């Protein structure tokens, strides 16, 4: 069940939860991820969907948040990471096709692993619980099918 042990998962998850708690207690903001794409696009795309007030109001902090996420991972890699810099061996086409579906799906669903998975579920939102169960299930089915096809 846990070939890599539990420690890194527990500590990593605790940091993620602490970050969400830290931001919420100080500002009341739910520090979530996927709206970042839409809110950043609002700088360039003038259509009403992108120019919604929620996007305009959050687009600045979402850029700072994303920059922080990248920097935090870099700090981990340069300090206590056991394996240093690391590159995936998953084929590029899967990152691109998958990434497209992730961008499309999370925006249609109004949330991702962080928005539905952490902030939504911790807000006891049943909508988020259904969303999480759905994307974990379809993720597992997808990986299973890829395995059967030998991809």
């Amino acid at each position, binding site marked *: 069940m846990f070939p890599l042990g539990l420690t890194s998962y527990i500590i990593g*998850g605790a940091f993620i939860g602490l970050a969400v708690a830290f931001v919420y207690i100080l500002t009341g903001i739910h520090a979530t991820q996927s709206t970042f794409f839409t809110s950043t696009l609002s700088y360039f795309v003038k259509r009403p969907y992108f120019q919604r007030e929620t996007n305009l109001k959050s687009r600045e902090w979402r850029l700072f948040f994303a920059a922080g996420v990248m920097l935090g991972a870099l700090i981990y890699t340069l300090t*206590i990471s056991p394996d240093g810099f690391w590159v995936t061996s998953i084929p590029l086409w899967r990152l691109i096709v998958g990434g497209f579906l992730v961008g499309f799906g999370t925006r249609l669903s109004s949330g991702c692993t962080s928005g539905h998975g952490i902030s939504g579920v911790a807000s006891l939102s049943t909508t988020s619980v259904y969303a999480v169960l759905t994307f974990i299930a379809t993720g597992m089915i997808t990986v299973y099918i890829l395995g059967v096809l030998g991809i």
Partner: protein
Amino acid sequence: MKQQNIVLFIGGIIFGFGLAYGNMSKPEIVLSFLQRTDFGLAVLMAAGFAFAFVAINIVPRFIDKPILGGEFKRRERTLGKNTIIGAIVFGVGWGLSGLCPGAAISSVGVGNLPALAGIAAMFLGAYVMGRYFS
């Protein structure tokens, strides 16, 4: 720099550190969870949930508003057809790439530069959704 941006920047650093520490910035680890060979990510989610749960449900009983201003409001969304269709599409993309938005951004920080292609594709997906399906 605005106070709010500083808080989110620091929060982002902690968040990204956690994603990297918890291996979630590695798509291979995400796929091993979806393959049901390593359930560690469920543990990571549970640990994250615990802290977020306390902040969202318990802390507001003791202080009536956020320390720097604003208001405490649960994150609630109305359940609609799009919530589920979107989650289905997201799950397929997650299973293909092993990337979700936050993990992809942190993945760049661990040196996984191909994740940038995934992020670019996420922007395109978000654009197509907003442009044609909203």
